[in-house]
């Protein structure tokens, strides 16, 4: 030990700004839209290491779509994307409010992150399978899953396809390529790899997509997913949604000393790409690329979607306690709805009037669905799943001890 050894101290990373501070994202480097080249789908991951430190962006400040990753979507498809995002945003606002009114116990919104799941939802094929977290309802909306069914689940009413067993928003729809959401973080990331391995084992052509939050990349299942995906070259797209926060904890606690979350892929020889998560076109293009890569036998891709959680973590959370209330507004990558809207206007395929009208139509549609759902029941009122449903489905066939317990319970 050299004689000048000084006492050690613990490094605890801190976010740039806390309540009361002025948000400052000036050190956050944002590459220009169009500046990242689009490699061949079969590219060697080693040759695109830099993509984990840059950000694929298509929409520039002027609302133009530029660069290699542009040009994949028709105006109709873009309008559809806008509709999906607006639907999700409206749905969120209504359900947030419904929760405040006591119609359900809990809700989680997507504010500011709508592009990620809505755009990705259009990039997979029927039969492919997402393993989402609680913040990818856009995958369902982009696949036209009925809003009223989502609400029935949220209200735990008699038409809830999950029979009231799950907390609100823990949807499941095999048919819509949406794996049953788990309340446990990270677990589904490695399951998505297993699903993809199964497709490969079966000589199928389907692929899987795993989802995880920035904070949850710290979970050990992240590692399991990377190891298995890398070893078996699984046809899977592994998505990290970096919305900067994990409840009250900023992404630096999970990220530690590394430059980016995407860089975690390098240690596994997995192609790793960062994308502007608030840019519908960029998310869609990168998702398509990764899906094609997986489907054509080139193995996994890790995508870091760089976005910002503009709302609270959930209805149980108040972000004012731990971050600046101006941070969302200061977020330098803008709002995904705004940006797609401006792009459509810029290319002459949309107007402010049509937008206002679309908003009204969507609100109407969402409210109609809500009325339907509430006519069946909310958590507080109306028709509910039966207590018998609690005993059903623990196993395919109810074993004797559960039959006895159900009888003891009187159902």
């Amino acid at each position, binding site marked *: 030990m050299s004689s000048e050894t000084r006492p050690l101290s613990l490094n605890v990373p801190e976010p740039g700004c806390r309540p009361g501070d002025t948000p400052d994202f000036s050190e956050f480097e944002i590459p220009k839209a169009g500046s990242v080249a689009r490699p061949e789908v079969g590219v060697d991951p080693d040759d695109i290491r830099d993509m984990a430190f840059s950000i694929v962006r298509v929409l520039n400040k002027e609302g133009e779509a530029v660069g290699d990753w542009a040009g994949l979507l028709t105006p109709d498809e873009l309008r559809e994307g806008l509709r999906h995002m607006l639907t999700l945003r409206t749905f969120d606002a209504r359900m947030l409010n419904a929760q405040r009114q006591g119609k359900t116990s809990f809700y989680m919104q997507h504010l500011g992150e709508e592009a990620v799941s809505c755009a990705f939802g259009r990039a997979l094929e029927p039969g492919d399978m997402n393993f989402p977290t609680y913040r990818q309802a856009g995958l369902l909306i982009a696949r036209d899953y009925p809003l009223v069914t989502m609400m029935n689940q949220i209200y*735990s009413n008699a038409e809830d396809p999950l029979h009231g*067993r799950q*907390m609100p928003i823990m949807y499941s729809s095999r048919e819509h390529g949406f794996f049953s959401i788990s309340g446990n973080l990270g677990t589904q990331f490695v399951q998505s790899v297993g699903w993809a391995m199964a497709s490969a084992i079966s000589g199928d052509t389907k692929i899987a997509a795993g989802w995880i939050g920035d*904070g949850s990349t710290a979970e050990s299942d992240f590692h399991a997913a990377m190891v298995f995906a890398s070893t078996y070259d699984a046809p899977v797209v592994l998505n990290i949604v970096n919305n900067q926060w994990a*409840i009250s904890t900023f992404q630096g606690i999970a990220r530690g000393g590394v430059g980016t979350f995407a860089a975690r892929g390098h240690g596994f020889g997995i192609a790793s790409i960062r994308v502007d998560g608030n840019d519908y076109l960029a998310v869609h293009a990168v998702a398509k690329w990764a899906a094609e890569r997986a489907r054509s036998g080139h193995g996994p891709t890790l995508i870091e979607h760089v976005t910002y959680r503009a709302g609270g973590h959930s209805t149980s959370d108040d972000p004012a306690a731990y971050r600046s209330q101006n941070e969302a507004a200061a977020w330098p990558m803008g709002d995904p709805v705004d940006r797609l809207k401006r792009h459509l206007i810029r290319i002459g395929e949309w107007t402010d009037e049509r937008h206002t009208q679309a908003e009204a139509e969507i609100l109407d549609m969402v409210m109609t669905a809500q009325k339907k759902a509430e006519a069946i029941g909310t958590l507080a009122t109306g028709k509910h799943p039966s207590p018998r449903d*609690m005993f059903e489905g623990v196993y395919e066939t109810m074993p004797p001890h559960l039959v006895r*317990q159900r009888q003891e319970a009187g159902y």
Partner: protein
Amino acid sequence: MARMTMIEAIRDAHDVAMSADERVVVYGEDVGFFGGVFRCTAGLQAKYGKSRCFDAPINEGGIVGTAIGMAAYGLKPVIEIQFADYVYPAFDQIVSEAARLRHRSNADFTCPIVIRMPAGGGIFGGQTHSQSPEGLFTHVSGLKVVVPSNPRDAKGLLLAAIADPDPVIFLEPKRLYNGPFDGHHDKPIVSWKKHPLGDVPEGDAIVPLGKASVYREGGDVTVLAYGTMVFVAEAAAEATGVDAEIIDLRTLLPLDLDAITASVRKTGRCVIVHEATRTSGFGAELMALVQENCFYHLETPIIRVTGWDTPYPHAQEWEYFPGPVRVGAALKKVMED
């Protein structure tokens, strides 16, 4: 004495321990700046600095694993698992490492850590915010398992847990954080501030591990309960008029068997209540012990009132929860059998 909620009492215990002993460090998910999603560690980072109270990455195994390393070094980590439902990723570190370290190294290394976690349901948390995994931990030799039922005990038992030389699993019934709860979910919530057990002594007021308390004296039947179920049992006894003696176990491992057998030998009847699923829950062990130690004193079969052997459901929460009606029926049944 100060009137406190259970949350405040837990925070106070941290505060007392941290100010008395520099080796006490506190961390977990959202535990640092924000003070925990239930605010049990609020203010500690500001008071003791970032290297004694800090946010951890979301990796429960890593939280426990690093705590074991810290304990081996000589610190006394008090860590929070955000919900008991999320302790399973740390199960290996707890079972294979924390619980075994003293024994396998012949005390060359020891593991004085406290693993706190909110447990139990009644908050519409569904299957991943409602579980009561205490039964699992009681099967693991080397662990201690504690479940307080009120602010006074919460503070005292947490202080005892921090002082303990071995790993302690500390399960906090989250439905009791703000006030007592007797299972009548449709009644207005009362705060601990209006309850005598909300009177929490100041300073280092330890409540020893391994000692049950007789929460309510009675002569007809012994009710073995802990956490929320203590109040449910009380409500059931009052509603049915059965003169139940309610034992608040407080520490499940090591268990205060003497208190149990003394009571059951007196009453000759026993009802066991817990919120966890029934099969192989801690009620099974309690039933086994009562059977082994009081066989010839038992007038009627022991009855378990528990959560059902299903995941904790969201909408059917109150059908799952072993509330005062079900406990009351059991009290009446043991008196009739």
